[in-house]
């Protein structure tokens, strides 16, 4: 069997294992669905509630968001041919954050539970449209610059919302959301994000062949029949759907998109197309692990996901810089 295929199977098995673990452990301890305890029907019902209504959707969201981040990171690194590219590059996660922040700021979240992810999604799509419009007609570099400009605009909007927050509670709510978390997310969050993440993932997976050819540079890729304009558009729309939907339910979660492709490259090779599937699986695995860890760490308050991935991700980033320094001439 080919080695990259074997790596994919290993990753898939680990994701499944971690997913089961993620349903079984949590704040209310290790639950055994096959042994609902004392035989008291109320406790059996409680166990069922915790498992099906709390932990199961949370596990599914972790898989979806992790896969979205890992895959879009791999695709963006392939498109830009830059190992430091990540899903935040095109202004899409900042757009999702701004949408969600507006919902929290205006108090929509209190009247309508899905207002935060729904506005987040709108923000992501709006940011993507703005980046596409700004960057259209130029090359990949222009697209990245457009993404940086849009990202700056969205972050300025968030800063404005924080500055103008009507009360300290709203400001706290906003910062708390920005730190990223999957706590207390239910099935409605799955239903609002999955219809965007799944087609987005398929769209991003379809770019493999073009990204492979792009390792030869834009001119050679074009000479091999790759439609670069269409490729850039596909990547942008796919990232808007996946990362936009993921960020709008989970808040901003850094480093997964950057790190996942680097973790799988030693095993599947450097061809951008071969890294896609494994990066999605690796992203899902990393986010599942991080989410389980946030629930197991014995702190009074649950540690936020974005904080944990940041704490674990930064040393990795530093190691990457050190290795680059050693291998670069």
């Amino acid at each position, binding site marked *: 069997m080919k080695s990259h295929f074997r790596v994919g199977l290993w990753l898939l098995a680990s994701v499944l294992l971690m997913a089961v673990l993620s349903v079984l452990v949590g704040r209310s301890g290790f639950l055994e669905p096959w042994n609902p305890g004392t035989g008291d029907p109320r406790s059996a019902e409680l166990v069922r509630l915790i498992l099906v209504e709390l932990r199961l959707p949370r596990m599914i969201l972790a898989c979806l968001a992790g896969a979205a981040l890992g895959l879009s990171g791999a695709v963006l690194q392939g498109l830009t041919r830059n190992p430091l590219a990540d899903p935040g590059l095109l202004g899409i996660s900042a757009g999702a954050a701004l949408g969600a922040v507006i919902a929290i700021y205006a108090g929509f979240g209190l009247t309508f539970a899905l207002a935060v992810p729904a506005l987040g999604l709108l923000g992501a799509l709006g940011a993507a449209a703005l980046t596409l419009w700004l960057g259209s007609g130029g090359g990949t570099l222009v697209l990245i610059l457009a993404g940086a400009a849009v990202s700056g605009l969205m972050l300025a909007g968030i800063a404005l919302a924080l500055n103008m927050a009507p009360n300290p509670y709203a400001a706290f709510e906003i910062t708390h959301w920005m730190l990223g978390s999957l706590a207390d997310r239910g099935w409605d969050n799955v239903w609002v994000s999955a219809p965007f993440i799944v087609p987005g993932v398929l769209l991003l997976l*379809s770019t493999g*062949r073009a990204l492979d050819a792009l390792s*030869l*540079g834009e*001119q050679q890729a074009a000479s*091999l*029949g790759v439609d670069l304009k269409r490729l850039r558009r596909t990547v942008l729309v796919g990232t808007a759907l996946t990362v936009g939907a993921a960020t709008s339910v989970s808040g901003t979660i850094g480093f997964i998109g950057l790190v996942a492709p680097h973790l799988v490259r030693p095993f599947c090779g*450097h061809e951008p197309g071969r890294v896609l599937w494994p990066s999605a699986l690796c992203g899902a695995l990393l986010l599942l692990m991080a989410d389980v860890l946030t629930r197991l760490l014995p702190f009074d308050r649950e540690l936020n996901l974005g904080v944990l991935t940041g704490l674990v991700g930064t040393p990795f980033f530093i190691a990457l810089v050190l290795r680059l320094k050693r291998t670069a001439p």
Partner: protein
Amino acid sequence: MTRIQAQGVSMRRAGRLILDDVCVSASAGEFVAVIGPNGAGKSTLLSVLSGLVAPDDGAIHLNDRALSDYTPKEMARLRAFLPQNPRCEWPLPVHRLVGLGLTPMLPAFGDFAPREIERIEAVLAACDLTVQRNQPVTTLSGGELARAMLARAMVADPAMLVVDEPLTGLDPRHAQDAARRLQQLAVGQGKLVIASIHDLNMALRCANRVWALRDGRLIADGPPTEVIQPKLLREIFDVEVSIFGTGTGAFVDFSPRQPI
């Protein structure tokens, strides 16, 4: 039989004429060397003839069909293009790099079929890359990388091969080696090869046709021994030139008469 024809091709960039009413044609079996000073429009002419850029004016026909009527995929199957200093951005093994040349023939998903793997191995052998087969491309020497890129261009067996400065930056042995391979493709295998070349002695020995450009205009078009003549070269390059000997063994010398 492959035949490309360009009529009245012009190209403007920022108000400057880069190609000015160029009319050329070439067909299978020819090795065309495009010569001229820097900024003469050689690279632009090559990308226009490859169908990568549409000219502002003029028409190009490949096999009596307008180039603009070909889809990028169709063109990708007919011609291979290598830009100046081709590079690979990821450390792929050499055989995977060569395989990228088959991109236009592959379906959207899936790996190579056995027939395609055979083809890759055959081209690797033909380009003396069997030893380097699994080596990461980023660790190859300049000469090896040039060979790998040529293998990448040849693997899909294109009828037309357009190469921008294939000999620049290679040491004498590798430059001769690359020139011989290109000539073999044209004369031996009946492909149409168009390459921009700075080394006129090499152009004299390996090409069977020369297009000379200056300021975007075609100054001369003919067999190397006719085009590479003192009067014409002085007009194209604006420097003194001496030519020793005759025929394809002649020697072009641009060295200044006085120490600089």
